[in-house]
């Protein structure tokens, strides 16, 4: 007995919880801001030490002062409102059509043949390459701009939602059959929640795509919007205004992505995943 206790190391009275080996620790609240903060620091150091010519890239604080000035003049918020409006309209239109097409193509045989084939064909063509045709068909007005944004949102939403629909567990379909769910109940309780993770992934890509398309269409014969502001500034070599435009785009992209992520976390509370 004594010999045994001598050989075996005493177990600690309170065993600590096991360390994570493959899973990860819970993320810190604002952990995502670390990368951007480091970049900002790097940029500031280069500007202060004079390594960075302000004509090539102005200092971060120049962006702030210029932004304040633009806001005082009322220009920034005016352009921002127009841009946000376009992006939101395109995002909404693209999401709704993307989901509807995914449902029709995922849940009906004929729809699958017709729609999915077309979508796969179209995937090879970059959306921006379609812009000349869009201009030809829809003119250079708001309709064309929203249509281009909606198109660039449509595809990721469609593809992700459709993939998720196809991956719905057959066992859940069997369950729905034995519970004698109606088509509508099946759609509402099994199909839509099952496809939701895919839709949200698509929405994240879609939101990013919306801003991208926005930049392009706003530099195309626009008379308002952040893109127009930047184009105008380029003509007058106002690097600080161009920089403000860039920062606004970055914030919008980052913000919309964060918003979708929050939405994702809320909507998918029932899931347990590595990334949490």
């Amino acid at each position: 007995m004594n010999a045994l206790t001598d050989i075996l190391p005493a177990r600690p009275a309170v065993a600590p919880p096991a360390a994570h080996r493959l899973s990860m620790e819970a993320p810190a609240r604002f952990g995502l801001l670390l990368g951007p903060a480091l970049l900002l620091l790097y940029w500031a150091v280069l500007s202060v030490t004079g390594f960075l010519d302000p004509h090539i890239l102005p200092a971060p604080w120049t962006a702030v002062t210029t932004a304040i000035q633009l806001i005082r003049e009322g220009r920034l918020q005016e352009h921002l409102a127009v841009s946000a409006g376009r992006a939101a309209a395109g995002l909404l239109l693209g999401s709704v059509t993307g989901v509807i097409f995914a449902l029709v193509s995922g849940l009906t045989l004929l729809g699958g043949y017709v729609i999915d084939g077309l979508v796969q064909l179209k995937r090879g063509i970059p959306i921006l390459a379609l812009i000349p045709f869009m201009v030809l068909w829809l003119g250079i007005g708001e309709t064309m701009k929203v249509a281009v944004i909606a198109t660039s949102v449509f595809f990721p939403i469609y593809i992700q939602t459709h993939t998720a629909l196809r991956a719905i567990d057959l066992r859940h379909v069997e369950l729905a059959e034995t519970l004698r769910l109606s088509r509508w109940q099946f759609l509402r309780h099994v199909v839509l929640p099952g496809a939701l993770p895919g839709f949200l992934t698509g929405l994240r890509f879609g939101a990013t795509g919306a801003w991208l398309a926005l930049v392009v269409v706003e530099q195309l014969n626009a008379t308002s919007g952040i893109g127009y502001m930047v184009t105008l500034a380029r003509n007058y070599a106002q690097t600080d205004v161009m920089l403000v435009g860039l920062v606004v785009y970055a914030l919008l992209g980052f913000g919309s992505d964060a918003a979708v992520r929050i939405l994702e976390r809320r909507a998918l509370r029932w899931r347990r995943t590595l990334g949490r």
Partner: protein
Amino acid sequence: MSAAVRVRGLTRRYTLKGVLNGVDLDVAPGEFVALLGRSGSGKSTLLRALAGLDHEAEGSGEIEVPERTSVVFQDARLLPWMRLLDNVVLGLSGRDARAQGQRALAEVGLAGRELDWPHELSGGEQQRVALARALVRAPELLLADEPFGALDALTRVKMHALLRRLSEAHDPAVLLVTHDIDEAILLADRIVVLDAGRLSADIAIRSSDRKEQAPIVRERLLDTLSLGAR
């Protein structure tokens, strides 16, 4: 008494698995029948046919099952995005559906867990929710496809007691597919053995002296099952 289940000359063929060769089976209302057989004997095929889930199968024969038929699968098959109570009353309508669901959850010992997510439950608890979901529909026939196959031995013992209690309280006809001889003897009023797509034995058990009959029945079942093996 008219039968709860009536099967005549049932034949099923799948390209890959499961074959039934002219199965005749009657189950009386309230009767608890265990369907025993080795892997590949066709017992799951028979149950899936009764549950109306064999769309891909080819075959012939007659099947009559009651309007209200519930199925319990080997996995609990809860929808992970629905809280427990919503899982239990899925597809039910009517004002008191949720109250009934709550009662059913209490019956399987999960009162107060209505708002939990399925992933917060152990395997045994999940299977209890599946039982509640089946029973809240007041089935005339309960089809169970190895419902305890994935559970550990201790949990299984508890689930046996629960299933027996529930089937006595609700009195549906039960068809329990299992490969566990002792489970069949413990629970059933009647044991039928399926071998190579045919019924090869049909043994009634008197519930009054279940314990005394157990060794004899087990002997007979072992004979039937191992004879088929050769």
